[in-house]
C-alpha cells in the first residue's frame, strides 16, 4: 500500500510544483520571537495536572460529563494520564453502580443543574473512597450548599473551581464546540450562557481581565460583550490579577462579516484535512478509505502528542508531501536495515530502538494514509482548478473573466456539486451589487448540473446570511479604491506566493488595524465608558468569533504572533471551528429558523 501511495504522491508533487505559476520573493524571514505566556493548551493541562496532584498518591478514577470529557481529551493522552495514576474514566450520566471504595474520584464537571443533581445523588451513596470535585466554571453558592448537605459520609476532600471550560484546539486556538449558534432573533439563551461561560473561563485560565470591544453592526456581538462585562464586574474579586503592561483586550466578532473564508478550499495541512475529511475533537475518521488498516480507521491528530503533526500542520500541501516522502524514505531505510538482523547485536539494537521505531512507524503510516487520501480527493474532484477560481473570486475584481471560469467549471464533470455551489456562492457574494450580476443564470446551470435543491437554495441563503447588508467591513474592497490599488501594487511587486493560498482572511486586516491603532471606534466600539483606554495599545488580544472560526484564521493568527513588528499576541476562539460543510449547515439552520419565525 505504501508503495502505490508513494508513487501517487510523487506524481502529485510534481503537479503541484508545475502548477505554481508565479515566482516567489523571499523577504527576510522573521528570526526572533519572544515566547509568550498565553497558551490555551497548557492552561487546561495545568489544571488537570493540578487535579491529579491534589488528590495525592493512589488509584484514581476521573468522573466527567460529556463536555469535560472532550476538554480533557484535547490536552491529555490516555497513556499520559495513566502515568498520573488515573486508570478509569467515567461519565457521570452513565449511571454506573459498581462501588470501588479503594479508588479516589476526581470529578471534573461543568456546573450544570443536571450535573449538580447527579453529583449530589452520588455523594449520598458514594461509590468511591474520597472525592475531589472541580467545577469548570463559576458555581452558585446554592449548588455548593446542595452538595455539602448531600455529603453525609464526609467523602468530599476538595471542592474547587478550575476554569477549563473550553476546548483547547491549539496553543492559540480554542473552541466551544457549539455547532450552531445563530437564531434569527439573536441569541438562544442557553447558547449565549455557554458562550459567556466559555469566554470567561478562557480569561480566567489565562488570568486576563480585559477591556472589551465588539463588532458594531452585530447585535449578537454587543449582547455577548455586555453579558461578559456583567460577569467581569459581578465576579470582580475573581478577576483581580496582577497585570503588568498594557491591559488585555477581548474582541468579539461576528462570522457574518466574513462569510468567504469558511467557503474556500484549503491547502495547508491542518485546514485541508478539516475541509476534506473533517477533524472532530482532534480525531479524523478514515473508515471510508478503501483498504485502510484497522488501527487507522480513526486517527488522532494532536499537536501535543504527534511531533510530526506539530511541526507540519501549517505547511502547504506541496511541502507536506515532500516531508512525508523524506520521512518514508528514512523509514524504509530503517525498516530494511532492521529486517536483516544477522547478529545478536543487530537484534539487540533493534529492540533497543524499538519504542522509537514503533512510534515512528505509527506516525508515518498515519500521515501517509492521510496525505494519500487528500491527494486522491484533490485529483478526483479537480480541486486545484476549483481552488484557483475560488481564490481569484475572493481576491480580485474581474467580473466577466470570473463568470467565464465558473461556467467552465460548472460544465466540468469532475467538479463536485458542493464545490460548484460554493463557487456560485462566492460569486453571488462578490458581485452582489454588480451591474451585470448573473447569479440567476448560474443558479440555473447548477440546477441543470443536477445539484441538490438544498445546495441551490443555499446560494441565496448565504447572501442573506453574509451579504453586504450584514457586513460592516469592506470584505471585497469595493469602496476603498486607494487601498485596493496599493494592495495590487504590492502583489505585483512581490509576486504572488502561491495562487492557491493568496486569500487572506478579513481577520488579518482587522488585527493589523488593531495592532497599529487604526481600528475605528465607530466600527469596533469599546464597551462602556472607556475613553482613556482607547489611547493605550493592548498587547494581549483574545478574539472570539460568534458563528465559528476556521483553521485558516488560526494559521493567520499564528503568523501574526510570529511577527514581532506588530507587537501583539493573539488567541483566537470561536463557537466552533468550521469547514465549509459545517459552515453551510450553520447558515442553513440560521435561515430555516428565521423563515419559520417569519411565517
Amino acid at each position: 500500500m505504501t508503495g502505490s501511495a508513494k508513487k501517487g504522491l510523487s506524481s502529485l508533487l510534481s503537479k503541484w510544483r508545475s502548477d505554481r505559476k508565479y515566482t516567489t520573493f523571499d523577504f527576510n524571514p522573521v528570526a526572533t520571537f519572544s515566547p509568550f505566556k498565553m497558551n490555551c493548551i497548557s492552561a487546561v493541562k495545568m489544571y488537570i495536572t493540578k487535579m491529579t496532584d491534589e488528590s495525592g498518591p493512589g488509584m484514581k478514577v476521573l468522573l466527567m460529563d460529556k463536555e469535560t470529557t472532550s476538554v480533557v481529551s484535547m490536552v491529555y493522552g490516555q497513556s499520559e494520564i495513566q502515568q498520573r495514576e488515573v486508570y478509569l474514566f467515567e461519565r457521570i450520566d452513565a449511571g454506573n453502580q459498581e462501588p470501588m471504595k479503594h479508588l479516589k474520584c476526581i470529578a471534573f464537571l461543568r456546573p450544570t443543574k443536571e450535573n449538580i443533581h447527579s453529583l449530589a445523588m452520588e455523594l449520598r451513596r458514594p461509590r468511591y473512597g474520597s472525592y475531589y470535585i472541580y467545577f469548570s466554571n463559576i458555581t452558585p453558592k446554592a449548588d455548593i450548599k446542595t452538595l455539602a448537605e448531600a455529603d453525609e459520609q464526609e467523602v468530599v476532600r476538595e471542592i474547587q473551581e478550575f476554569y477549563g471550560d473550553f476546548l483547547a484546539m491549539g496553543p492559540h486556538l480554542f473552541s466551544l464546540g457549539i455547532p450552531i449558534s445563530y437564531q434569527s432573533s439573536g441569541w438562544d439563551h442557553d447558547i449565549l450562557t455557554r458562550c459567556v461561560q466559555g469566554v470567561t473561563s478562557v480569561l480566567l485560565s489565562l488570568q486576563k481581565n480585559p477591556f472589551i470591544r465588539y463588532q458594531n453592526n452585530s447585535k449578537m456581538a454587543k449582547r455577548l460583550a455586555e453579558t461578559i462585562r456583567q460577569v467581569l464586574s459581578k465576579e470582580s474579586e475573581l478577576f483581580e490579577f496582577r497585570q503588568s503592561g498594557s491591559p488585555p483586550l477581548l474582541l468579539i466578532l461576528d462570522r457574518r462579516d466574513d462569510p468567504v473564508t469558511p467557503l474556500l478550499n484549503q491547502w495547508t495541512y491542518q485546514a485541508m484535512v478539516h475541509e476534506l475529511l473533517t477533524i472532530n475533537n482532534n480525531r479524523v475518521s478514515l473508515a471510508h478509505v478503501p483498504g485502510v488498516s484497522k488501527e487507522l480507521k480513526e486517527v488522532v491528530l494532536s499537536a501535543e502528542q504527534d511531533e510530526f503533526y506539530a511541526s507540519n500542520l501549517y505547511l502547504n500541501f506541496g511541502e507536506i508531501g515532500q516531508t512525508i516522502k523524506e520521512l518514508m524514505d528514512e523509514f524504509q531505510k530503517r525498516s530494511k536495515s532492521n529486517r536483516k538482523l544477522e547478529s545478536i547485536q543487530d537484534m539487540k539494537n533493534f529492540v533497543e530502538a524499538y519504542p522509537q521505531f514503533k512510534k515512528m512507524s505509527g506516525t508515518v503510516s498515519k500521515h501517509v494514509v492521510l496525505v494519500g487520501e487528500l491527494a486522491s480527493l484533490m485529483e478526483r474532484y479537480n480541486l486545484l482548478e476549483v481552488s484557483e477560481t475560488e481564490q481569484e473570486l475572493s481576491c480580485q475584481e474581474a467580473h466577466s473573466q470570473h463568470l467565464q471560469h465558473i461556467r467552465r467549471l460548472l460544465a466540468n464533470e469532475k467538479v463536485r456539486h458542493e464545490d460548484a455551489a460554493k463557487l456560485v456562492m462566492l460569486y453571488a457574494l462578490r458581485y452582489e451589487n454588480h451591474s451585470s450580476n448573473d447569479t440567476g443564470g448560474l443558479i440555473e446551470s447548477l440546477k441543470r448540473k443536477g445539484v441538490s435543491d438544498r445546495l441551490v437554495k443555499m446560494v441565496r441563503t448565504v447572501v442573506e446570511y453574509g451579504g453586504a447588508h450584514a457586513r460592516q467591513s469592506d470584505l471585497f474592497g469595493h469602496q476603498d479604491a486607494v487601498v485596493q490599488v496599493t494592495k495590487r501594487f504590492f502583489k505585483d511587486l512581490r509576486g504572488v506566493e502561491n495562487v492557491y493560498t493568496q486569500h487572506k482572511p478579513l481577520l488579518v486586516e482587522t488585527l493589523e488595524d488593531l495592532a497599529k491603532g487604526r481600528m475605528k471606534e465607530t466600527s469596533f466600539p469599546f464597551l462602556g465608558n472607556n475613553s482613556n483606554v482607547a489611547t493605550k495599545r493592548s498587547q494581549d488580544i483574545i478574539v472570539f468569533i460568534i458563528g465559528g472560526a476556521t483553521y485558516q484564521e488560526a494559521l493567520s493568527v499564528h503568523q501574526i504572533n510570529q511577527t514581532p513588528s506588530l507587537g501583539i499576541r493573539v488567541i483566537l476562539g470561536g463557537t466552533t471551528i468550521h469547514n465549509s460543510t459545517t459552515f453551510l449547515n450553520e447558515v442553513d439552520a440560521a435561515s430555516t429558523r428565521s423563515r419559520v419565525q417569519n411565517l
Partner: protein
Amino acid sequence: MAEGEGLVLEGFLCPICKVDFGSAPKLLSHFEKEHNEDKDVIQAFKDFFDKAKNKILKNEMGSGVDSEVQTSRKVLGYSPSLYKPQPLGAVRSHMSYFNTVRSHHLEHYTVETNKLLIRLDKILKNLPSDPLKRKSHEQQVVPWVDEKMVRLCPSCSRSFHLARRKHHCRLCGFVMCNDCSYSLDLDVARKMTSPVSQVQAASEFHGSTSLQQLKRSNSNSSLNSVMSLVEGVHQKLDLGLRVCKECLHLLECREALRESRAARPILLQFYERLRSYMQDASQFLPTYITMCNSLSYGESTYQLKEAQALWAKLLRLAENIDSLSKKILVLGSADTENPPRGRALQLQQQIRAAATAFLRDEMLGLPSLPTEAKYLEMQEQRRQELKARIQEEEMEAQAAMQLQKQRKERNQDRSVHDERANAHQDTVLLDSGWTPEKARLFSSDDPMVQQMNNLKHYIKEAKLAQRVDEVEALERNLQELQEEYWRQQERKRQAAED
C-alpha cells in the same frame, strides 16, 4: 493630479499621458517606450519610482502596512520555544463554605445517629426471647408514639385498616405500615454497636467482614446462643428489629463509612508496592544514565562496579514491576465462580497497561554499560586523547612563546630607543620566571595539592555513604582542580625553561 473636471485620478498613472496602467512594471515599460525623447524626465521618473518603491517596501517591512503579516514563507508549526511557562490559571476553592454547611448539617445527623446507636445498644442488652417481654423491653428503651394519633402511614400516606396494621419503629418509636418498615438483623445490629477495634479484629482474623463469618466469630457469646434458640420459634421478621426507613438509612451510612475505613483489599496492597517500585526506579534512572554516559566516554568519575550494581538493581526493579503488574492483572481470576468483572477488571487491566508503558518508555531503551575490557580500552583511549590534547596545548603554547620571542627580538632590533616598553616587558617575563622555582620547591605544600587530597578523601567518604549526587559534584570539582593544576605546572615549566 487634479484634472480640469476636478476629478481625482488614482492608480498607476503615467505623468504625461495620464493613462492608468494598473501595475508598476507596465507603467514603467510604457514610459520607457512612449516617452523616451526626454532622458532627464525618464531618469527623474525612474528615481521617483525607485524611491517610492523603496519607501513603500521599507514601510511595509518596518511596520507592515498591508504586509499581510506573513514575511517568512515557511511557516513554523508549534514549538515549545514559542511559549513561556505560564502560571496556573485562576482557581477558587469552595472548601471552607462547603465545610461549614456540611458540619452544620452533619451535626444533626451525628447526634441522631448516636442517639440511635445508644438505643440499639440498650435494646440488644438483655433482649428477652419471649415476644411479649421483648416488646415491653423495647418500649422501655424507646417510648412508642400513641398509635391513635396516627391516621395515615407517614411515608406512603395510605390509611391503616385491618389488613394494613400499624407498626412501631423500635428505634424512634414512630408509626408506619408493614410495607414501609424494614427488619434490622440482630447480628448486623450487634456488629453496629460493637466497638470498631473488635470488628476489625474479627474481620482481620477471618480475612473478611461477611456476615456468616461474623456470626461464627461471635458464636461463643451468650447472646448468640440465646438467639439460636429463638431462631426456630419466631417468624422471620421477629428475628430482626422493626425499624423505619430513616433510622435504617442513618445506621447504614455509618456502617458503610466504618467499613470503607477498615477495608484494605489485596489489590490495594499490591498496587502500593508496585508504585513504590516504580518510584524507586524513576529515582535511580537519571543517576544510572549519567553514570552510563560518563563511563562510556572512559571517564573515571564513577566506578564501573557501582554502575553495574545500580544496573542490577534497576533490572530487579523492572522484573518486580513486571511480575507484580502481571499479578494484579490476573488477581481474582482463579476464583472461577466470581472472577473480576466490569470495571474492577478494567482497573486491573489499566494498571497493567500503565506498568508496561512505564517499562517500555523508561526502562527498555536504557543504554547498556560497557564491558570491563571495553571500559579499560575506552579509558586508555581517553587517556591518550587527554595526553594528545595536553601535548597540543603545549605545542601551541611553545609556538606562541617562540612567536613572542621573535617579535621581541625584532622589536629590539627595530626600536632600540624604546627602552621603556622593553623594560616593562622584561619585568613581566622576570616575574613569571620567578614563580615556578618557588612552586617546585614547595610542591608538596601547594594549597592546590592539599585541596585535591582533601577532595579525594571526601569522595571516598561520600561513596561509602552512597551519596551519588555528592560524589558527582565532588568528582567534578576534583577534575577541574586537577586540570587547573596541570595547566599551572605546565606554565611554570615552560616559564622556567624560557
